[in-house]
């Protein structure tokens, strides 16, 4: 249950920030698979996620968060409660 909710919110933030349709973002989405997920867009996304979930990532986390599942893992490690 928890994971589904988190997944839904993460996908919404990713879609909104990258300017893509919500349907285009899924558990498979990553910097490799989504054209709009450029390196600059990635930085923008990190800023959006920090704001949306009220947390602050470490540099190591930032470099690891290159896909939707990776983002969810970091958020869960931060104890994000949806």
């Amino acid at each position, binding site marked *: 249950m928890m994971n589904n*909710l988190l997944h*839904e919110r993460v996908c919404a933030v990713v879609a909104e920030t990258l300017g893509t349709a919500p349907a285009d973002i899924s558990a498979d989405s990553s910097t490799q698979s989504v054209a709009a997920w450029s390196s*600059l867009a990635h*930085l*923008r996304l990190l*800023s*959006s996620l920090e*704001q949306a979930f009220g947390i602050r990532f470490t540099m190591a986390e930032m470099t690891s968060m290159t896909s939707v599942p990776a983002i969810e893992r970091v958020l869960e490690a931060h104890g994000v409660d*949806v």
Partner: protein
Amino acid sequence: MSEGAHLDVGLAVHIAQYYLARRRLNEARAALAPFEDAPPQTLAERRALADALASLASAHTLRRDFDLARDVLATARTLAETPAVLCAGAALAAATQQLDVAIAGWRRALSLEPSNDAAWRDLARAFETMGDASAAAAAYLASARHGTSHANMLAIAERVAALAPASPDTRAAERIRIALLGSSTLDHLRAYLEVACRLDGLVPDIYLGPFGQYAQEILNPQSALYAFEPDVVVLAVHGRTLFPELYDAPFDLSVAERKSAAAAAADGVADLLSQLSSHTAALVLLHTFGVPQYSSLSTLDLHDEFGQTAIFQSINHALAERIRRDFPFVRLVDEDRVFGRIGKRHVTDTRMWYLARIGFTEAALEALSEEYLRYIKALKGRTRKCLVLDLDNTLWGGVVAEIGPHGIAVGHEAPGNAFRAFQEAILSLSKRGVILAINSKNNESDAMQVLQEHPDMVVRPHHFASIRINWNDKVTNLRSIAEELNIGLDSLVFVDDNPAECALVRDRLPEVLTVELPPDPALYRSTLLSLTDFETLTLSDEDRQRGQLYAQRRERQAWEASQAHASEGLGDYLSQLDLIVDIAEADEFALPRVAQLLSKTNQFNVTTRRHTEAAVRAFAAAADATVYAARVRDRFGDHGLVGAAILTHAAPGDLVWEIDSLLLSCRIMGRGVETAMLSVLAADAKAAGALRLRGIIIPTAKNAPARTLYSAHGFTHSGEDAEGQVWELDLRATAIQAPPWLTLSVRDAVVARR
């Protein structure tokens, strides 16, 4: 759920939000259901319920359950048409391809809540889908204007640049070509500058040099930089890339080596500037080298003969000198000041620096683009010339017509000191060449009294080139100010605390920059100082004197007008003036001004005794003296406290009273005010039992106008004393009448009150 009717609405909304966050929409609906048939009584509760239903409808829309969304929205609408309900309706319409309906909905929501930056973005996307690029760009910019997040700013910059690119059709006055060069990733700087320019009505074309290749770009005459033909080149090179040893280990060097390294650093940058200047006529904005936050000598840095602070200051100082001498088109962007405003530790997010060589945070980007705009607007001739100010709750706290000149807040204690600080900032603008004007709905006499006489005011009538204190609407006044000063409406900045007045001016005179002050006067000063509209690229002596020159012009025109009238017939002219002379014993408020008049007045001054303020206060407090203050106003306005006299008498019942001092400000001479004053002095002395009134004339090089005062009013010359001529009036035989053309108002019988 009949028990639901007893449920608290706030609790139900809270429960619904809990389920909404977990996407359990049916449970959310159930939590709100009890109130759908029995709507709450209060408007606030109905609005809260409507907002919760709007969130639910939006969740249904996202799941593409449009029928459910429609149903929930219909219920919400019967409760209250809140902005959230309107936005949810618009989102549903957009999702079902009814873009016209969606746009109308967001527009209505934004008319109720213009600060909703998310709704502006939704509206922009709808316009984009419809293919209306310019409306979309405008809506994106409105979102940025209302303070959107960092990520949104970056996205908005991208969208507006794509939707409304600079093109050959762009009007030259709006076009600006900016090249950004530096040693870090400047993409975000480009985004913020793009938006900042557009919010000021400029259409920028921004060139971003290849990462870190600023030197190659500058040195190669064939580079893309020069091909771009920039109007402005920003050179934001971090000193660490030029002289790293002065950051990391300056104290490995001897003092002499540090000095020569600092000189070499400045020379290296100057070499870049001379290359730049020989290949482009652009305005170059060169970042200074900010003093690092920590020195390796730590607290002892300034104790060192040539510590790191001194090193950086000497580099910047040497550069400034070179630029003044050799590079007329280069200006320095002072990093220590610009970043000091936001705090240096907020300039760089170190994670972003290590990850992506991004040197500037959101706060730094805002501060930098604001600073660049100061230069860019000056370069594009967008400098505004005149600052037009409201009075009540703007220059001072409170409404003078309600609480009186003594009740307003301006002074040395809170909150009056905030208004004083604001006035100091206004005056410093005036000294830099900004013309000042007043546009206030007020009783002119009240307001002018404060401006002229309130001891704690910083700005005075002579600082203002144009004054409109009346009951006209502010739009009419602004037009007439622009006309009087012979400048365009687009040269005016209008500052007011009243949102309704600001909205009216913004609507009717969009060319005027209207600045609505924040509710807290503590923020007035910084609001004014953050305006980027008064900059010039150079400052001449004439600029420094402009405020004064305009104010003098106003006074001269008034004087010439009065001379023209005088030649038509003095009596007629004076009686048409509607002069009112108000004479009273000088109170606390008046005494400093009386002392000032005694110290300054040369022409109409019978004795020219320069009593100090302390001496004047002693006269006022003494039982055997009275200090008089005369205020004058006429149909054109209030002249303020312009006359003063000191009457002495040994004891009540003393037979001869003496006029120690009597004077008039030169701007009120020739209107019979002196006769009115003498009439009051004589009447008071007589009422107290005196038999004679004595006056002394002490001739000076300048007081010829005052020397005939006593002879013209029935006094007889009784001799000379050590200082001058002695004149006396027999109070039993002669009464002095105030002139028929003025209205004399005497506050109490001044002496009799004692």
